């Protein structure tokens, strides 16, 4: 069933979902939020688009194969795990780049990895189910 209202709504909702997912991802370090829930919210935006306009439109909007997204996420998380290795730290030890306004860290990189892995994983599953192939 194609509903023009839902279709139009989804096109407006997707950017909103993506922005709020990024907000939740970034605030996650010191407040409730984080990569997992952020990734789920982003996946939700695409899920609405899939229900409204079908998988082809969603794939066009996503532009990148969801599995590759999952791979990028996994690599980011692993990279964060190895981040402390050159300076003799433990696996997954947090490294901080103390910039005055923007505290960057390997912890954030790990969270970004989780974000992409969740987004990629959930979308892979939804696409597989919607397209009727093997899950």
């Amino acid at each position, binding site marked *: 069933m194609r509903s023009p209202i839902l279709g139009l709504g989804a096109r407006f909702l997707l950017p909103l979902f993506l922005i709020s997912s990024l907000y939740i991802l970034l605030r996650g370090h010191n*407040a409730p939020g984080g990569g*997992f829930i952020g990734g789920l919210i982003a996946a939700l935006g695409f899920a609405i688009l899939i229900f409204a306009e079908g998988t082809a439109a969603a794939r066009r909007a996503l532009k990148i194969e969801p599995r590759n997204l999952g791979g990028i996420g996994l690599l980011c998380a692993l990279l964060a795990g190895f981040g402390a290795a050159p300076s003799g730290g433990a696996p997954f030890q947090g490294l901080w780049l103390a910039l005055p306004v923007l505290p960057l860290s390997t912890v954030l990189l790990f969270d970004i990895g989780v974000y992409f892995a969740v987004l990629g994983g959930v979308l892979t*599953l939804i696409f*597989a*189910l919607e397209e*009727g192939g093997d*899950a």
Partner: protein
Amino acid sequence: METLIALLAGALTTAGIWLMLSGHLLRFLFGLMLISNAVNLAIFTAGRLSMGRPPLLEPGGAPAPEMANALPQALLLTAIVIGFGLFAFALALTIRAFRAFGHLEVDRMRLAEPEPAEPELAGPELARPEKPAGAM
């Protein structure tokens, strides 16, 4: 408060087991979800229940007395995330099973373990199983 949550966990488990005994795959999964929520509640209670005192510190602040333990909540969060993944996969498998068999009655899923009454191609020199061995 703890008693109330414990009773709630018990009620969820009861409902979950009742659903799991129905022999229908989807209901089984719903029952399992209820039970895993009951388990999550139990872990949550293990971390001390304290109304309105989240285990978060203000910058520079000292921990409040009787604050909830943060670790069970972290464990819980992990368990919810993992449960979500498992449940998503189990649902996907259920859809596939429905496409393959056309029904979700667990008792009728005998493809991997056929009933001995079905004509098997075993020759006379081989003993036939007396019972459906390992049937669930």
